[in-house]
């Protein structure tokens, strides 16, 4: 390389810098500044931690926050539990003839908009829905039962929405697992449980971690599914943020909530990476 200005570098780096500064860094900084400002009793804006104080004083806020965090962890774990056997079946069990077809088929529904998928579940589950129709017809139920608008429906909807992001890394992790290792373990007397715990899962750990991170983050930040499938009492923290911004028009309070959600999401992801000895740069590859 000749000394002087490296034009290649300049051309490549300027749009990237503009993107990251203007749309990622500065907006987050701005949100933080908004969060630590509030009106004092005289009606003037100034530095204040009042927005955060209100969060801890009002049980509805921190309870929703804790609820969102706990449910997100649960959804992430359930998603892993449900998709892992399917990924294993497609990569290791089914005959190679159908393997490619099944791998495409299993990912197909996720190209469709989340809204359409949630709407499909609403048609199935609600009081006048398709499942109720059949249950009444076959005499299982006397009266139609509302199956939508509760926590179970909401968790199921969230799991359904995020399965793709667990499946893709699991499929690729399992594909790189040598069948001979499983066979060797089997010959040495391993059973299904011990082979899963000591061969398959340790090998897939990077894939599991990367899938979990994305699923967790998307669940935590989801607005649509909890809003449409959860009940009136089934509050999600993003709804609180939305209410502060759009309904109450209290942007400072909303920013504080947004900042807290950001801390929660990056905090738990950081913890997950530390516990499994992974690095973010590695995991997303």
């Amino acid at each position, binding site marked *: 390389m000749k000394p002087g200005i490296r034009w290649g570098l300049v051309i490549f780096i300027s749009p990237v810098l503009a993107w990251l500064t203007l749309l990622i860094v500065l907006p987050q900084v701005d949100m933080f500044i908004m969060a630590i400002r509030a009106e004092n009793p005289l009606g003037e804006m100034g530095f204040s931690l009042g927005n955060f104080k209100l969060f801890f004083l009002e049980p509805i806020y921190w309870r929703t926050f804790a609820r969102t965090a706990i449910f997100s962890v649960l959804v992430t774990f359930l998603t892993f539990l449900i998709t892992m056997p399917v990924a294993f079946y497609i990569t290791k069990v089914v005959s190679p003839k159908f393997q490619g077809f099944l791998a495409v*088929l299993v990912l197909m529904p996720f190209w469709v908009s989340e809204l359409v998928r949630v709407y*499909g*579940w609403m048609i199935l589950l609600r009081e006048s829905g398709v499942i109720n129709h059949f249950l009444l017809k076959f005499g299982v139920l006397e009266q139609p039962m509302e199956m939508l608008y509760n926590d179970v429906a909401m968790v199921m909807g969230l799991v359904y929405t995020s399965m793709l992001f667990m499946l893709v890394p699991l499929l690729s992790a399992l594909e790189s697992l040598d069948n001979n290792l499983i066979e060797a373990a089997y010959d040495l007397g391993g059973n299904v449980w011990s082979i899963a715990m000591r061969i398959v899962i340790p090998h897939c750990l990077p894939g599991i971690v990367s899938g979990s991170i*994305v699923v967790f983050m998307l669940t935590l930040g989801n607005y649509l599914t909890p809003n449409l499938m959860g009940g009136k009492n089934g509050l999600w923290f993003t709804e609180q943020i939305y209410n502060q911004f759009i309904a109450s028009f209290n942007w400072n309070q909303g920013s504080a909530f947004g900042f807290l959600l950001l801390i929660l999401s990056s905090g738990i992801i950081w913890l997950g990476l530390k516990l499994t000895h992974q690095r973010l740069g590695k995991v997303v590859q």
Partner: protein
Amino acid sequence: MIRNIPQTRSYSHGFRLYVILYFVFLFAPLAITCILAFNDSMFPSLPWKGFTPEWFTGNTVERTGIFHDQINLDSIWVSFKVAFFVSILSTFVGTMAAFLFEQESFPFKSVLFFLMLAPLVIPGVILGISILLFSNTLGLFFETHFGVDVGLFRPGFWLVVLGQFSFITTIVTLIVSARLKKFDPTLEEAAMNLGATRFETIVHITLKFLRPSILGALAVSFLMSFENFNTTLFLVGSQATLPINLYLQVRDGSTPVINAISVLMIGGTSLLALVNLYFSRKKN
């Protein structure tokens, strides 16, 4: 266990049953949505009252099919326009970013790389509100200091484009980088030794090699933009995109028109997904 290890019949049957149930779970909501789009009823529910295409083609006061439903058609058009700009813009910048991180070295590269990944861990809602806040701050700044009112800084079409662009570019960068990693740099060196400039080399050699992944990135970013809800929710102005518009309708009760739109979306996205698959197959 794996296919060449013999297993008890109950184990392999049980496993197969589980996978079949999973696929039923996976496709049930989509299948039922499509079926009920053709039901001759005022509500998207059973019992089946006969086949009708009226929720697509109808043009009466009672049943306005999607092809005559101006509000929904408008929002589909808005979504198309947004997705068009987002996919072009993010593929362009994402490809630049892939070149930057794979081929260049500069101070603080790892910091910038980490920042590039940040949109993956920032929830979409937070991206939406932070961009809304920042554009509002900029708008106020320009108004008080220069006395100009910049339309771009108010919620609306271009803010939606920018909001979606902010995280879709990361996805594009990862897709293109994965391909660029497999590129043999000696090809570039050979071209440069034969007298090509850096620019000519990139156009004729590297971009040609990257073409399948760039087309794939275009398709993925188009779909992600078309379907985005969380980030768009806070940035949308008077022109609602399709997901926002559908959300408002689903929340306030539903008619089979929504099913008809869903059928079109399922058809359209499957088609685009298949095209994308075709290109990624060719890549390997």
